[in-house]
């Protein structure tokens, strides 16, 4: 009971070295055979002692023990004897993951295979032995092979602006980015713009947002499409094309200018009025408070 109470207060985490708060790495066809970005683990002990730490990767759920037949053993972690915090790094090659089959290995298109990086520490309030408590790293870090492109997005509206169009879109939940492309209907170079999907409004089954394409020619008709990109870099099929036509607009300043308004470029400074004000204050300041 004592060992268990110690374990509940300890903190055990695994995250990407470049972003320890991240608990997911998604990769695609082009990343097969390469190393997963370096992972960092840390174990913060509150009291008692850490007896051992083990790591492995499994295509299923972590549990408390490695399953040799299906899991990939990452070995033991080094426990600090001088600090209450033990840390280390884990290096994983995507080719060592065991969730792939002979028919659907890494590099196969159209499939998704998930793995979890598991860590279990054995701790004891007094002497390490058979009654050690087990603490799992939480949350489980996930490594997802994603070779499925996102669902084709759709354009919900195009707003024509000055030398720009604002493209509103709807896309699937696993979209990390959206790229908009505008090609002159009469032919010419394509202009692209990319927006993160993170700031969009999440719906029940989709998200929506907008991308602004700038640097366009006014009074030119453009065919505009959007392409959804997921975290693994898979690109969806382009949306159905919408047409946009950037339009020269006149704001309030243009309205005033066309009406003949010219803002004076010179004028007296505020010094005269300030001088009057300060003088008045100095005269009155000579009187004391009552």
């Amino acid at each position, binding site marked *: 009971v004592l060992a268990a109470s110690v374990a509940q207060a300890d903190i055990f985490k695994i995250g990407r070295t470049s972003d320890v708060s991240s608990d997911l790495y998604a990769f695609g066809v082009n990343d097969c055979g390469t190393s997963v970005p370096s992972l960092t683990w840390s174990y913060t002990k509150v009291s008692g002692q850490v007896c051992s730490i083990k790591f492995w990767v499994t295509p299923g759920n972590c549990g408390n023990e490695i399953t040799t037949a299906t899991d990939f053993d990452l070995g033991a972690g080094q426990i600090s004897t001088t600090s209450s915090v033990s840390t280390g790094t884990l290096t994983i090659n995507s080719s060592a993951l065991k969730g792939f089959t002979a028919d659907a290995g890494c590099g196969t298109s159209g499939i998704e295979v998930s793995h979890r990086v598991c860590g279990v520490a054995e701790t004891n309030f007094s002497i390490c032995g058979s009654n050690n408590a087990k603490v799992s790293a939480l949350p489980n870090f996930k490594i997802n092979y994603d070779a499925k492109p996102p669902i084709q997005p759709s354009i919900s509206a195009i707003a024509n602006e000055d030398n720009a169009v604002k493209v509103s879109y709807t896309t699937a939940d696993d979209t990390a980015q959206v790229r908009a492309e505008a090609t002159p209907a009469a032919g010419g170079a394509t202009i692209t713009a990319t927006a993160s999907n993170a700031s969009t409004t999440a719906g029940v089954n989709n998200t929506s947002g907008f991308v602004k394409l700038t640097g366009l020619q006014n009074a030119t008709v453009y065919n505009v499409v959007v392409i959804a990109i997921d975290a693994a870099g898979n690109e969806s099929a382009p949306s159905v094309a919408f047409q946009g036509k950037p339009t020269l607009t006149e704001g*309030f*300043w243009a309205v*005033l200018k066309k009406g003949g308004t010219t803002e004076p470029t010179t004028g007296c400074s505020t010094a005269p*009025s300030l001088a009057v004000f300060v003088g008045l204050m100095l005269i009155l300041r000579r009187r004391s408070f009552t």
Partner: protein
Amino acid sequence: VKTVACLVLLLASTAGAGERFGPSPRSMMLEIKLGPYVPEIDSAFQGVMLTPYASTFGTPMLLGEVEFDYQIFQNFGSLSAAFSVGYAEKFTKAREAGTTLSSDNATGLRLLPVKLMAVYRFDVLNEKFSIPVVPYVKAGAAVLPWWVAKGADIEFATDSAGLNGSRGQGVKYGFTGAAGLSLCLDFLDRRMAHDFDTGLGVNHTYLFAEFATEQFSLFNAATNTLPLDLDSKHVLFGLALEF
């Protein structure tokens, strides 16, 4: 009899203590106020029958101001030096060039009035006779940075001949004045007002309405017949704390 005598003495001593602790010293005033605001832009176009502000925006801007007064004289009323900062904006859709059609671009006018003023408050009625009204007047200097946005940028535009391009931004200098009436709210609950003073040092709480004007034309002589006229006359309503 002894008990009654003790109670009388206790009440007498309590009443005496209450009289000894009068209101805390007051030297400052904080005002927060809001009101509709229409710069007199259209007045410069009366001769040519144009109303650019009204036809573009239609309704008044909303002006918000915060004012801080420091009282330098307290005898027959109070005289203060005051500093205030305000902000007003109005946005609408820009029109497609050469038409009256609304586009998808937004355009807006933003104003940031900054004032340095002398304020006289005739608070004798409230302080001496507990009549909770305080008329006041203000006068001073005003600085008005302004800018016109189109989309996310300050708009650049030319005249109808495509010449004299300039960005829609600038600063105006001028005078400001105001006259208003404050209603001291202490009479609603004098005990709470007293606690507000002893606990936080707030002597009085006011609701007020004031008529204000800004005149920039004196310092900003037009270089042609149609200047950008940001003079205004408007009414503000607000809450003030004197402490």
